[in-house]
């Protein structure tokens, strides 16, 4: 029996002959070798993409990036979002694994370097006891975390872990996903077995060696209790067997990391570290290259190395699958499945390799790509920083270049090119909405203004939205803001044209707008259209413009808070608020509308899916120009049903002209016209600010 004190330690290679030690080290080195090769292979794969720079981020920025990634990983913020159970369980697994791994390194450093080279060792005494305690604790955490995950998969079965894909039908070759499921279980199972055999081994050792301080290695101690009566010979055999089993399993696991789901441990970290925070807001222009190089992504070699890397980071967590409004309403698109499909092509290329097209019946289908609303819910929630929607956009660019687009969409793009707006109205009619006002709206091209109001297509031409536009004008006039509009100098902002994939038309529209705006004198630009907001603020700078751009809700909040607009009739409506994709999730502005609702005296009942989790109305990404298949639930109807399920909510408040159109329609078509009404926020403000009953709602 060994005694306590500074001699508390354990043998590393108990009862090992030298040949066995050599064998062990040989195997361990081989495993590391395979691991390293496995890590190098994907890097070579990523470098086959020519659609972006290599390295994705300049080497000089890597230290800061990797440190940032480490901090993010440490906090597990992205993994815990919207799923606290998974977040907690993964923390246990992550920290458990990390600590156990560190423990092995600490031991290895002592055994293989410190002792042979310098003759010293720290692996004993208090250090050793603390070490064992910590490892027991974190080993337990690991096991608990794994068990939670296994119960989730096997029993709870959350919808997002269902691998059934909406873009393949039963019987089609890529429909079946059971290899993924097997891979998941092998991964989780292997880790569990490694952890459990580790504890078992510890227990056997304690049962054999009876070191006396077993209480600190509580799991091992627990395991040792039922083994106390077993003979040393049996225990010895068990110990040998377990040691090799545990050891071999562990080093096999290490070697297999780059080839299995376990790879996400590395790729997810790198992807998170290198992620582009502007990806939601700003699409990349066509990179300079030979003129006949078609735009966008058609084959994997067209991808940027960063995007190819991101394909390998996906853990199939299903958060994007769950958040996607197209998937939620039965359309053949799941961002998860786009990424996985591309990954399969990258890992199992056909005869043409990375030059083969990934778009088609056996790849990413056109109907999948056109179902996307570019709402960025996927990009927002992905815990590892994958840019699903921008990748879809790049694939669309190739489709547009090849003329593979819905005929209605084609006609709309041609209309926008001809008339500068999607309504096909003569450009002279852009300012017609002002005719019904009792005052003149200044022409910002002819006189300097404080606020240049970029109105936008829908706000200018759609009759229902024009009511809102006039309300905004009246409020600005009332508060004596010096504002003006561009009249027929304004064009469609190009935001959605770009998201459809027509880069050339976007640039043309943007340039026309930039030219018109550059002739004007103003302090800042205000827009009532979140899509235009995004283009003007985040994308026009790519073409040289640089202005301060605010949403009308910000301006109206300022006016209310400063008293320039006075609330005369406090409203008592119970309202709910829909965060528009381009204002909320994409540009991070959630609070101004809520503050206004509060200032008006209304009671806000939050939508279950709110703020960054807001559910797209279905108009984005050019979808408003593509007719819906009849008989299918529309995202806007889905959203209204969510709203009417809230207790006693009278009004559905929006702050985007497309939302006005989509939700007025959805309220009717879903049969809820007598249960809820739509208001644009400005209309509520007018109700509160204007002394008599004025223009309110539809």
């Amino acid at each position, binding site marked *: 029996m060994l005694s306590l004190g500074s001699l508390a330690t354990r043998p590393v290679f108990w009862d090992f002959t030298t040949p066995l030690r050599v064998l062990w080290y040989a195997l361990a080195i081989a495993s590391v070798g395979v691991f390293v090769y496995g890590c190098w292979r994907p890097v070579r794969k990523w470098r086959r993409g020519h659609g972006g720079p290599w390295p994705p981020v300049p080497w000089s920025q890597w230290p800061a990036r990797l440190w940032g990634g480490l901090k993010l990983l440490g906090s597990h913020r992205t993994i815990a979002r919207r799923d606290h159970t998974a977040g907690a369980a993964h923390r246990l697994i992550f920290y458990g694994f990390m600590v156990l791994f560190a423990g092995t390194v600490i031991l290895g450093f002592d055994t293989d370097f410190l002792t042979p080279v310098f003759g010293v060792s720290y692996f004993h005494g208090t250090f050793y006891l603390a070490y064992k305690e910590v490892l027991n604790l974190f080993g337990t955490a690991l096991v608990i975390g794994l068990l939670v995950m296994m119960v989730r998969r096997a029993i709870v079965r959350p919808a997002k872990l269902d691998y059934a894909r909406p873009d393949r039908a039963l019987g089609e070759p890529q429909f079946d996903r059971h290899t993924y499921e097997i891979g998941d279980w092998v991964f989780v199972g292997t880790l569990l077995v490694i952890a459990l055999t580790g504890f078992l081994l510890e227990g056997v050792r304690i049962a054999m060696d009876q070191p006396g301080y077993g209480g600190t290695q509580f799991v091992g101690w627990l395991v040792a209790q039922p083994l106390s009566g077993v003979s040393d010979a049996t225990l010895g055999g068990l110990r040998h067997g377990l040691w090799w089993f545990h050891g071999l399993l562990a080093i096999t696991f290490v070697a297999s990391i780059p080839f299995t789901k376990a790879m996400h441990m590395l790729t997810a970290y790198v992807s998170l570290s290198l992620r582009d925070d502007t990806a939601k807001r700003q699409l990349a222009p*066509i990179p300079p290259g030979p*003129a*006949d190089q078609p*735009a966008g992504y058609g084959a994997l070699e067209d991808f940027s190395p960063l995007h190819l890397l991101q394909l390998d980071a996906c853990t199939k967590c299903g958060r994007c699958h769950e958040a996607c409004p197209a998937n939620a309403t039965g359309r053949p698109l799941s961002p998860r499945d786009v990424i996985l499909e591309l990954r399969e092509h990258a890992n199992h290329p056909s005869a043409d390799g990375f030059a083969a097209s990934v778009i088609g019946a056996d790849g990413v289908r056109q109907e999948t790509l056109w179902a996307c609303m570019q709402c960025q819910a996927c990009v927002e929630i992905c815990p590892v920083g994958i840019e699903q929607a921008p990748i879809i956009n790049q694939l669309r660019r190739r489709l*547009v*270049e090849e*003329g593979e*687009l819905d*005929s209605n969409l*084609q006609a709309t*793009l*041609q209309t926008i*090119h*001809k*008339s500068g707006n999607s309504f096909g109205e*003569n*450009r*002279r*009619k852009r300012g017609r909405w002002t005719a019904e006002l009792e005052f003149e709206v200044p022409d910002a091209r002819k006189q300097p203004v404080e606020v240049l109001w970029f109105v936008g297509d829908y706000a200018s031409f759609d009759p229902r939205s024009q009511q809102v536009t006039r309300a905004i004008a009246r409020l600005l006039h009332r508060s004596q803001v010096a504002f003006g509009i561009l009249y027929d100098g304004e064009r469609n902002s190009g935001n959605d044209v770009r998201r459809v994939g*027509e*880069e*050339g*038309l976007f*640039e*043309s529209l943007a340039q026309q707008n930039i030219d018109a705006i550059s002739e004007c004198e103003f302090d800042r630009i205000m827009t009532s259209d979140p899509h235009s907001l995004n283009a003007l603020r985040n994308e026009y700078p790519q073409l040289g413009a640089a202005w301060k751009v605010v949403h009308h809700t910000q301006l109206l909040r300022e006016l209310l808070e400063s008293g320039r607009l006075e609330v005369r009739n406090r409203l008592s409506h119970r309202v709910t608020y829909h965060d528009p994709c381009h204002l909320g999730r994409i540009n991070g502005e959630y609070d101004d509308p809520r503050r206004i609702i509060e200032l008006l005296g209304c009671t806000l009942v939050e939508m279950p899916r709110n703020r960054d989790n807001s559910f797209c109305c279905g108009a984005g990404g050019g979808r408003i120009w593509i007719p819906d298949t009849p008989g299918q639930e529309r995202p806007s109807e889905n959203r209204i049903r969510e709203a009417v399920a809230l207790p006693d909510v009278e009004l559905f408040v929006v702050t985007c002209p497309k939302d006005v159109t989509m939700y007025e329609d959805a309220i009717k078509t879903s049969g809820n016209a007598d249960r809820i009404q739509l208001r644009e926020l400005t209309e509520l403000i007018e109700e509160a600010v204007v002394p008599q009953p004025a223009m309110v709602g539809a």
Partner: protein
Amino acid sequence: MRIVVAVKQVAALDEEFELLVDGRSVDPDYLEWDLNEWDTFSLEAALQLRDALDGDGHEVVAVTIGEEEAQEGLLACLAKGADRAVRVWDESLRDSDVLAVARVLAAVIERESPDLVLCGVQSSDAVNGATGVALSGFLGLAHVAVVKHIELDGTTVTVQRELEGGLVEILTLPLPALLTIQTGINEPRYATLRAIKQAREKPLESLSLGELGLDHGAVAAAAGSRVVSIAHPERGEGAQMLEGAPAEVAARIVEIVRDRMTG
């Protein structure tokens, strides 16, 4: 094989517009320009015919009479895949009627010695429906108007001619020939703005009347008519408009239908 496609940049009129002082044409400020819808179909037909031919050296040439706006239309044709484009303009052509236009087009096209000439059945602004066949008169080409299907076999073309009431006539004619193309014959492809920008690198010739061997006199002599004036049409009473919510309108419609269908 050389296929020439005669195209036109047409004007779309806004609901509210003003006429020029002389009362003979519309103030150009109120016009928006676009490639004639029929010509997108004839260009597409030409591109498909060319691409189906074996061997090299086949070309599609787009030709138009027009000033600056017409350049856009030609670029769109080049962007979609035409090999060359030619534009002719002279101020005296501004008020030309269909025969004068055909006369000038004939001069341009003669230089090209085409095997096949395709035109749209009509343009959406003038709606004469005559330019193609008049052109065949000047060029002395065998021709068929209102074609909805083309099959090329060596130097013989088999076409389907669309007649009133949905009747179709199938006939053959030898090359060189001229066909006027009806909508619906194919699905015209989309030209991205990027492609249109890149099309500026493709050959686009601008010619004057002189370079065609024509003068104002020759063109004027060919003209078949002259506009005296244009005016707003007399509106009849117009429709009796049904107002109200959709349910009310539908009820009223049902009432009218029942009334008219009985007795």
